[in-house]
């Protein structure tokens, strides 16, 4: 997945009206001296013999429309001509691909339904239609293109709304065209030094907003991947803001919803999303909306809540380059420390607890945690989790193989999540606090739990029989029934023959946790869902180690953000 192809190359605003097709604004713009980079005829050598064939040589054009990632070879007038479309193309997706460049927009008529009528509120030359166009690299994926189109459409709707409310767009257009005229009227010498667009940034609010849009869109990641991740968001995950909370509040639009502000105030990387909801007085579904929002706009990422037992290791994508800005920024935050020394420490999986020196001062502990948080924000660390596989016999485990088709335990409320997902709003506008979704996020186990609910009474009845049977050396069949049906009888025998299986307590817990031993649920997930302490779980795993295989790797969900 290449971040670069999803970043825009440029943002362009064009309009068509009584003054013809105009390019109102573009960002990034090129200085006037480089505007002449458009194709020139190759300099003719006056001494070359001109052959008759040469007269017919096809005009050569440069292959690429991009130079160093920026638009090349397109004058303002050319862009205006091709991007200010005819009115017939308004109200639908507009896409134009030229060699390795793709333009995507949603041309919009200024006035609903009419063509060319002048609104009483408009000032100056009338505008018939406008188009906010994103220039992308042609290789961008379909989902990225969709997103940009969607965005262009939303911007257009917003602008048209504002135009009808207070003539905003016509006013801004007038300012922009005014600047162009002003610059054109300057004497030659002055003209060369400034591009009209840089002047526009000072005078026009719309120009500044468009520039801001462009800058924020750079390197945000593939939306398709993000959607996939959101489908597996769980209440035990936590949100990590990628910047200071106060800065983010200041940065985001002033009419932000109060719910979002509450979330910003109470969020910490140690708090699960469920607790976040409780503290911010929101339902879990609302929290998921907001978090998915922030993740989509790259203001936050999803992690597992920080706690002592978390194990972190250096991310394979972490940049180790010496003298990089990252290293100096680290030193600004943590004077006296070296980023590379810390990265060396994390080359081996390290528990957060170990990082803290027990004899150290409390503030050192805090600093350790802050270091980890900083590194997580900059995607330098990944968390490793332990996963458990039940492999009772020497052959492949039936539990694991069958699990493939039915998908795994833990996605029980995926429908709920998907519904939440589809109603996700992308504008940071008011969030409905009256969303009356009563359903709490239920236990993910679904049917497995139900079958074990009568365990208590069963075990009580069995206790007497159990001791008798074991004395006789025969294994009671009822015990076998507690284990998942997918296992073969041979596998069940193997489990029962583990010495720890003789203890009803241990066996009962083991049987209850069997569905989690398919390698898809890490220990923290099991602890959360089953309300089991880590020490208990680890002891149990140790007791049954002869039928279990464990391994450590990163959580698939959070690796989406690490491009692993």
């Amino acid at each position, binding site marked *: 997945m290449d971040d670069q192809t999803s970043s825009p190359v440029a943002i362009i605003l064009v309009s068509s009206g009584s003054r013809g097709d105009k390019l109102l604004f573009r960002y990034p713009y090129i200085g006037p001296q480089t505007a002449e980079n*458009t194709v020139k005829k190759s300099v003719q050598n006056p001494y070359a013999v001109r052959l008759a064939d040469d*007269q*017919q040589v*096809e*005009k*050569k*054009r440069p292959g690429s*429309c991009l130079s160093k990632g920026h638009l090349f070879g397109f004058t303002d007038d*050319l862009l205006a*001509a*091709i991007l200010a479309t*005819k009115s*017939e*193309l308004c109200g*639908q997706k*507009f*896409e*134009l*691909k*030229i*060699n390795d460049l793709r333009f995507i927009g949603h041309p919009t008529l200024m006035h609903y339904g009419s063509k060319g009528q002048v609104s009483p509120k408009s000032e100056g030359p009338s505008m018939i239609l406008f188009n906010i166009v994103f220039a992308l690299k042609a290789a961008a994926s379909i989902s990225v293109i969709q997103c940009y189109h969607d965005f262009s459409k939303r911007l257009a709707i917003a602008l048209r709304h504002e135009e009808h409310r207070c003539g905003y767009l016509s006013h801004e257009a007038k300012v922009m065209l005014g600047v162009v005229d002003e610059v054109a009227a300057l004497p030659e010498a002055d003209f060369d030094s400034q591009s009209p667009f840089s002047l526009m940034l000072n005078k026009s609010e719309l120009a500044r907003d468009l520039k801001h849009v462009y800058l924020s869109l750079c390197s945000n990641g593939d939306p398709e991947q993000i959607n996939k991740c959101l489908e597996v968001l769980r209440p035990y995950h936590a949100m990590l803001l990628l910047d200071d909370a106060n800065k983010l509040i200041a940065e985001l639009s002033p009419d932000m919803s109060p719910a979002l502000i509450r979330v910003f105030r109470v969020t910490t990387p140690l708090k699960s999303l469920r607790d976040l909801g409780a503290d911010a007085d929101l339902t879990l579904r609302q929290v998921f909306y907001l978090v998915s929002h922030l993740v989509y706009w790259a203001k936050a990422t999803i992690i597992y809540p920080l706690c002592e037992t978390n194990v972190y*290791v*250096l*991310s*394979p*994508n*972490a*940049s*180790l*380059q*010496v*003298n990089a800005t990252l290293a100096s920024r680290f030193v600004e935050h943590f004077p006296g420390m070296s980023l*590379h*020394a810390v*990265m*060396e420490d994390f*080359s*081996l*999986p390290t528990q957060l607890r170990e990082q803290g020196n027990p004899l150290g001062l409390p503030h050192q502990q805090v600093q350790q945690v802050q270091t980890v948080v900083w590194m997580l924000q900059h995607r330098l660390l990944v968390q490793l989790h332990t996963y458990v*596989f039940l*492999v009772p*016999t*020497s*052959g*492949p*485990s039936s539990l*694991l*193989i069958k*699990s*493939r088709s039915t998908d795994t335990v833990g996605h029980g409320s995926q429908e709920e999540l998907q519904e939440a997902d589809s109603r996700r709003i992308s504008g940071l506008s008011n969030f409905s606090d009256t969303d009356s979704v009563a359903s709490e996020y239920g236990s993910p186990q679904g049917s497995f739990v139900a079958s074990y609910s009568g365990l208590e009474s069963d075990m009580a009845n069995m206790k007497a029989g159990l001791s008798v049977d074991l004395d006789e050396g025969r294994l009671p069949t009822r015990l076998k029934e507690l284990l998942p049906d997918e296992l073969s009888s041979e596998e069940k025998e193997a489990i029962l023959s583990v010495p720890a299986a003789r203890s009803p307590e241990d066996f009962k817990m083991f049987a209850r946790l069997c569905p989690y031993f*398919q*390698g*898809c649920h890490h220990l923290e997930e099991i602890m959360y869902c089953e309300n089991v302490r880590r020490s208990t779980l680890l002891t149990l795993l140790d007791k049954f180690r002869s039928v279990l*295989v*464990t*391994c*450590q*790797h*990163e959580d*698939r969900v959070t690796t989406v953000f690490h491009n692993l």
Partner: protein
Amino acid sequence: MAAPKESKIECLLFSEFHPTAGPKIMYQACLYAYVRYVLDFPENYIDKELFDAIHIYIITKPQLQGRLIMSNAFGKKIMGCPVCIDHPKYARNALIFNLCFVFDGLANSRPYEKPVRKLSRYLVSLERESGFLSNEESKQTLPRIMAQILTDLNEQGSCAVEVNQVTTIYLKTLLVINNPGEVHMYDVPIFTVQCDSFHSHQWDLTTQQILPYIDGMRHVARISVESDVAISLVKSCLQNMLYYGIIKLLPIFQYSNVYTVTSKINRLAQDRDLQNECNKYVAKPGQLGFPCFRDIFMLFCSLGPGTPVKDWCARHNPQQLKVDERRLIQFGVLHGLLRRIHKYPVLLTNEPGSQNLRLLSRWLNGQHHYDEICCRTGLSYSVLDEMIEDDPTIVVCWK
């Protein structure tokens, strides 16, 4: 290879700039229900309204001529390469035309980009050599040619259409595969298909020369030396094979390597076919009987950061479990079950302490791992390691 259904060409459109009428559609060759191919008069498939709205992308301004332009509007994608031939013999001193391919708005048009460009070049040469388009008689044959191109490309993915006695148009749709990535001198290529399943004699001579040295053990630099082929050529050939998916690249195998299991290990637990394949692949040759799944699985799961292969072997003794450890690792990396963890030395000060390090200092900026450094400097792993470990100003990061 026939074009996939969802990206068939719906129509071929020939349009030119008429000296008096301006841009107009001259000919259309359309696809009708994938069964009949109909030559229609211009008004039918692409109607006038659509053409009027987008003709500036078909008959374009001079700055856009010669470029591949694709416009998407009204549910149709129109892709063409506008041409302008300047010559006094033409009315208005120039002949401007464009032969476009029309697809459904959601179709994938990338396989047709090269054929469209090539076709436009064909037309240009035909016009320059024999006045193909300016001569009314030969121009009349264009619809037939267009229809044939349309049919053949849709059905076979290629076409060879005779235009006149001396010219045949050859076009082929291109399956677009993603760029395979760079080949480094320290990578080890390994075949992912059976050697005899592709006809090696169809490949170029250089590739044939290096084929015998691709065994999943030799790295690129070694292949270059042993096969006596320049390393840049070896890299090109391998890149080509990588593109077609017949090889994959692995890291060099050494007992000092460190690997870690990835989240894809679940696949091995769940997929019976993969298990069988693995079993056969990793079995120690010459042994009676195959290793058992649990042992193999356990071996994979026990690989992680901080555990070099030699320590892992000492702890678990794969040979005794009937497993060939090299092949196990190879299998794991090939299928994404394992990931190599590389060792990166980083020099933090600007003044390297010892003499030796002054020579190495350009490799110590955190962007080069041991494999690469060893390959480029010719030092062995142990020698390099000793030099690095001895110096207190170098930190070592693994990732």
